[in-house]
């Protein structure tokens, strides 16, 4: 190798290695040019799914999507409309592909915040439902899982008095705790975490469709076809089986097994007064010792109103409020005991007792030992001055 060749080689090598910014540029190029950052299709070509329903029938999965279709108008105008599409197939992916074909748009689940599932759907292994949706269709793990005994497509397509898209209502009702008392939203992540836990049981909000007592009035007269979405009860999913938990029991269970629970507690005293409290905080603590579990629930509430009192100004320290709080404690404890009975009857660990014992006992705990676990509970309701 001549001196000249060596110099040229050295110069080329130096030039190649000279700037570290080349590396930065390459990294930026990888992210920008090949990633999702630039893989944004025109909104006109995408069906942005904001709610998804899944049902299971003999023909396979019935998948429904509630999507926002954005179409460009003249000038700066764009119009939005909501459409429900349904497809049947052996797999959820097949259904979504069929919906894409029907719509002529590419289905995107990355903005889907609500899932409405029929009880039959839970007979399928839960991971097989959610894992492909998350890893292939980019379903956010924060999406709320709900259930309905109606057709999921009916719930998604329901027109309410306040919005054309029921998914928005469900999402805001659950996330802002405007649904039933003490019902907590269950995200896809939390559903899977509870479903695969030692207890293997998860409570999710149950959505019911009801006709309003009076249809809302508009300028054109009464608006017909409007529905009310009621979310007061829970569907308890354990393994492939489900059952419905009524409103008060759902509230008590949710307070014990979830931390962020709000809502109201209504009490009617034996003396006739009615008191209403708003739940500010519920702090459950479950202590296991051997094969017995003691659950203590500390509820902090604020007083909303008392009806039927003696006419004196009511404060949190009033006698009627103290009695109402005591009554609330008794009722919550009774409901928890009732939940335990139901849990044993249905073979569903809805109070997560096996999980509590497992955390103390470890691998020596036998499978399905719910019947062998003793349960006791205590409830404390503290009334705070808060508006």
């Amino acid at each position, binding site marked *: 190798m001549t001196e000249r060749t060596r110099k040229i080689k050295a110069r080329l090598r130096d030039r190649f290695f000279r700037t570290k910014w080349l590396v930065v540029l390459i990294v930026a190029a990888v992210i920008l040019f090949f990633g999702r950052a630039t893989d944004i299709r025109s909104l006109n070509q995408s069906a942005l799914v904001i709610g998804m329903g899944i049902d299971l029938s003999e023909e396979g999965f019935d998948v429904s999507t509630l999507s926002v279709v954005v179409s460009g108008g003249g000038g700066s105008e764009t119009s939005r409309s909501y459409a429900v599409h349904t497809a049947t197939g052996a797999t959820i992916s097949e259904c979504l592909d069929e919906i894409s074909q029907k719509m002529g748009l590419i289905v995107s689940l990355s903005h889907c915040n609500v899932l409405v599932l029929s009880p039959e759907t839970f007979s399928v292994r839960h991971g097989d439902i959610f894992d492909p949706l998350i890893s292939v269709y980019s379903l956010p*793990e924060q999406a709320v899982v709900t259930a309905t005994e109606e057709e999921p497509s009916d719930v998604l397509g329901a027109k309410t008095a306040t919005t054309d898209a029921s998914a928005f209502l469900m999402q805001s009702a659950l996330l802002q705790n405007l649904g039933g008392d003490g019902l907590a939203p269950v995200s896809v*992540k939390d559903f899977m975490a509870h479903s695969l836990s030692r207890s293997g049981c998860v409570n999710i909000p149950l959505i019911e469709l009801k006709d309003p007592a009076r249809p809302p009035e508009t300028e054109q007269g009464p608006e017909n076809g409007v529905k009310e979405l009621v979310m007061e009860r829970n569907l308890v999913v354990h393994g492939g089986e489900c059952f419905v938990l009524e409103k008060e029991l759902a509230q008590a269970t949710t307070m014990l097994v979830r931390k962020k629970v709000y809502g109201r507690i209504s009490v009617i005293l034996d003396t006739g007064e009615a008191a209403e409290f708003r739940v500010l905080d519920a702090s459950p603590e479950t202590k296991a010792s051997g094969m017995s579990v003691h659950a203590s629930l500390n509820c902090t509430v604020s007083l909303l109103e008392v009806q039927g009192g003696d006419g004196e100004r009511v404060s949190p320290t009033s006698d009627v409020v103290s009695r109402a709080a005591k009554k609330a404690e008794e009722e919550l404890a009774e409901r928890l005991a009732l939940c335990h009975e139901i849990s044993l009857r249905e073979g569903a660990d809805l109070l997560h007792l096996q999980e509590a014992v497992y955390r103390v006992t470890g691998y020596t705990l036998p499978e399905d030992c719910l019947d062998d676990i003793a349960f006791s509970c205590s409830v404390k309701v503290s009334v705070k001055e808060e508006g």
Partner: protein
Amino acid sequence: MKTDISTSVSADILPAASAHLGGTAGRNTVYDSQAACLVFCCGIVFKISSLPGLVASEMLSGTLWLYLFMIAVDVLMFAAVSSYASTGADALFSSRSPVLFRAFSALSSAWLLLKGVIYFCYTVVFLMVDLFVAVPPYVVVLALAAPVLYLGCKGVVSIARCAELFTPVLLLVFVANLALLDADMDAGRNLPLEAMPPEEFFKRGFLFGMWLGDMLPLAFSSIKRKKFPYLVVGTGVSYVLVAVVALIAVAMYGAALPYVYNMVIRLSGFNKLSLEIGRMEWAAIFIVIVMAMLSLSLHMWGAAEGSRRAFGSPLPARVMFAAGMIAVPLALPSAHVLTEFSVTEFGYAATGISLLLALVCGAEGIRARRAHKRKATPPQEDGGEET
């Protein structure tokens, strides 16, 4: 701009050793502040991204405990490697026992090459699942391989400078992700400690030996100490982050953790800002890609340096690393094949090799330290000869 770092270590290199080292000792010198950045960027990325899900599938609620055990082992291994690097043990080892030195270098080179290719497949899998949509695999492989090859050839000083450049940004984004994390968590999911009998814990735990000793390539560098103990602080911060991620991963997902392919991405998905400015996964994608590239580059450089010491030229390792990176993910029917292979019985071999290499580093580090001490001590009258 070139930085000329002269060290006491390079001055100690014996003439005989210089031939084995190819005159690279001075070129491969990094400050301990840079080494600390390397630990953060290269030493933890694969432990916090794909590993939590894999560990959880085997270890159940013992995931955090295995992580703590692995962290302790990894820190000891890194202490051995950094002792080897900072005492100039490389030169002394090569002059004292050239055959053993060559065997050690060849084994290190082969091991880093294999690990690098497997890690590369992990990165490709993650990119194909989480970032690239409908892009042929060869595009992903080539886009990823280019910066890795560039940095791997350029050397540890450039990798260290890049790490220095990116560390503040990556750390800031990472800490911001943790600070803004908004997800239901239950730290109790890390219990019980005894999710399985102790022998089963270790039997399953050692399957993950491939993730041990990620900082082995630093053995081929020289570390120049500064006054402030950057390396100790950097290592501490990095491994605390690993433990925190493992704790949060189990607290968030519990038994659903095996469904998580990349924990860093999922962590950023549950972000308080998501409701305001949309999905935040991009922040984590940036973290993982940059860290993975730097780590792969360091592995490539380590393999090349091992080859230089064993066979006199870095070229074989560079060619094989490049060929492995490009050919293996494309030739295999699925990159998952290799990633699944890494948690079979191969994991035990990986544990053994990693521990063996770290032990050699540790022993040679101690020997070199003693030699330096003897050198520093004035010769005694009875004429103690230097080794």
